[in-house]
């Protein structure tokens, strides 16, 4: 009996080591064994089959392809035109101020329209799927269809939670610890070409292992536009995993605040092997200091390109929000990058008000996979007559256009903060000028 136990244990161990080796060695050297590709094809076929099955089973008006489920048709008339119409239809009053109750109709209607639908709030919750992708978490409106589907779904749960998740967690831990150890080791070397080369290799290797740990299938387009040294790489932000995705294909210098705990250990280890730009919390408030350090880094042509996410917060990958102008004031070449995740295989958006980091990572590891496209856009420079804001908007439009995302003017910071009072006052001013204006034309 004991012998049997010992043998099974040994068998299990060797199998585990073999598995890990077969994943890690390719990661280290950057080639692929083709296992993940086969997994993805099987996955795609299963999901297609599931969709077909669901479509067949719901009669008549089944799954609507209306991604943009807008409920109302908003009037595009300006405030003046609408008020003219409102006033035309009521009896003309002889006296004083041309102000009546009917004027509040306009604002009431605007208000209700905003409550029913607004552009901003929906960007901070996860995107809706057109059809169910066999994950429990996306099962909102879908009912029981057939036994086969439920079986496949059950099998999926088993695979994801019992086989894939532990594997991924192990890989991620190995990847991160290797990063810390590797970069610290490289940091001991004297500065020189070997150190730079080694540090790049260590970084790439660890990020590749982490990417395998998330079952990430990344497609890079236009690799000739990849960011070069002394430039600034700018991308849209959906989750912290964006960093892993981008660093799988090149080395970047990160910018950020020093945290405590595990993140702090990682940050300190990374900065030993190649220069990143980490700020203390107090330093972040001083904009001049921040700009100066970034400019110094950019001007040194031997340092790696900086990676910045100008939105400042995580957005749900259906749109690109306002780019903060700070990163565009530094000068230097901007290399825009567009990242678009495929929602079918797993939702990468980090809703930080709903999930904390750990539960988010666990969700990532129990999704099917992480499929995304990365487009490298040609480098952009600031023109002479452009100010930082216009330049930022130009870059933003380019990224939105390439990634197929909506280009919005709203500030990502609205996720947490309120709109500035000045917006409300603008509407008030416009309206009051109309009232006063009319008054002067009607007065005796």
């Amino acid at each position, binding site marked *: 009996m004991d012998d049997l136990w010992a043998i099974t244990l040994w068998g299990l161990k060797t199998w585990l080591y073999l598995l890990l080796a077969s994943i890690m060695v390719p990661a280290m050297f950057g080639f692929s064994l083709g296992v993940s590709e086969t997994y993805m094809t099987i996955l795609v076929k299963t999901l297609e089959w599931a969709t077909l099955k669901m479509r067949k089973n719901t009669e*008549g008006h089944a799954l*609507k392809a209306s991604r943009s*489920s*807008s*409920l*109302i*048709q908003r009037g595009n008339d300006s405030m003046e035109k609408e008020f003219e*119409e409102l006033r035309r*239809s*009521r*009896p003309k*009053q002889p*006296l*004083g*101020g041309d*102000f009546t*109750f*009917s*004027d*509040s*109709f306009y*604002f*009431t*209607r*605007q*208000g*209700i*329209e*905003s*409550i*029913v*639908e*607004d*552009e*901003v*709030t*929906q960007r901070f919750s996860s995107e*809706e799927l057109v059809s169910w992708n066999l994950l429990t978490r996306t*099962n909102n*409106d*879908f*009912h*029981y269809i057939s036994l086969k589907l439920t079986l496949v779904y059950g099998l999926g749960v088993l695979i994801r939670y019992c086989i894939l998740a532990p594997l991924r967690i192990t890989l991620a831990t190995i990847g991160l610890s290797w990063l810390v150890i590797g970069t610290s080791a490289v940091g001991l070397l004297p500065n020189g070409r070997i150190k730079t080369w080694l540090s790049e290799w260590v970084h790439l290797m660890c990020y590749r292992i982490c990417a395998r740990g998330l079952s990430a299938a990344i497609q890079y387009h236009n690799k000739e536009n990849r960011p070069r040294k002394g430039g600034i790489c700018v991308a849209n932000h959906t989750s912290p995993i964006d960093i892993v995705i981008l660093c799988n294909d090149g080395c970047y210098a990160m910018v950020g605040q020093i945290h405590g705990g595990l993140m702090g250990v990682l940050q300190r280890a990374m900065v030993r092997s190649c220069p990143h730009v980490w700020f203390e919390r107090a330093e972040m408030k001083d904009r001049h200091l921040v700009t100066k350090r970034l400019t110094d880094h950019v001007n040194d042509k031997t340092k790696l390109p900086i990676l910045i996410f100008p939105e400042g917060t995580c957005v749900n990958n259906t749109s690109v929000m306002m780019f903060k102008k700070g990163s565009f004031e530094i000068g230097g070449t901007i290399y825009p990058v567009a990242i678009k995740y495929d929602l079918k295989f797993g939702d990468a958006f980090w809703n930080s008000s709903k999930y904390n980091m750990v539960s988010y990572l666990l969700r990532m590891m129990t999704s099917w996979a992480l499929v995304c496209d990365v487009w490298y856009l040609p480098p952009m420079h600031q023109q002479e007559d452009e100010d930082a804001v216009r330049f930022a908007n130009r870059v933003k439009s380019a990224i939105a256009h390439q990634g197929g995302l909506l280009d919005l003017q*709203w500030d990502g910071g*609205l996720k947490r903060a*309120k*709109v500035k009072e000045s*917006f*409300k*006052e*603008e*509407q*008030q*001013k416009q*309206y*009051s*000028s109309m*009232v*006063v204006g009319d*008054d002067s034309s009607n007065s005796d």
Partner: protein
Amino acid sequence: MGASQTRTEDVFQELSDKTGFSLEQIRILHRRFRQLSGDEDTISKENLEKIQALDKNPIRNQIIEAFFDKRNQNDGEVGSSREIGFQQFVKVMCHFKPPTLKMTTEDKEAMRREKLRFLFNMHDTDNDGTITLDEYRKVVEELLSKSGAIGLEAAKAIADAAMLEVASINVPHMEPHEFYEGITFEHFEQILKGLEMESRMNIRFLDVDTSTMHCGKSQ
């Protein structure tokens, strides 16, 4: 997975029959409701206050208050609730439906009165059935800029003038010592008699799913 879905569908169907929205519209409204409430079953004022586009609106407080006003629920109650559920949310939305082609004149009249009642309730903040000068003044102040073009005095003057105007229409032979308490609902209707409201006070809901478009009254 099975049972709870059908129950919600039944609730939606019931709401759709009661309010005249299509099933598809109710579903979309429900999704919006969940978005606003942060996946809870009720919305509080804070949830609505978070809407950024609403922040630009000068009378946003009155609009938000209107959702929680019990008078708009047509239950006969007064006062204001702290939270509302999805059914109450849809009922308030009902006030903004456009008239359908197959409506009779009485129906159109009734709809018009309902919309006027909604607006009246919005202005009558202390629930006493009349819009007093103070309440009216408050509305004028909110609509006009607090900071810039129109000062407080001017706003007051405009409100007073408008109130006088209303009084002269409704109580034409008022004695000098009489005090005009406020605008009652009947007066309100009288003032806005000529105003073609049906098309102004509507939100053009898109009927996404044409197969469920109702022909005839869906009451």
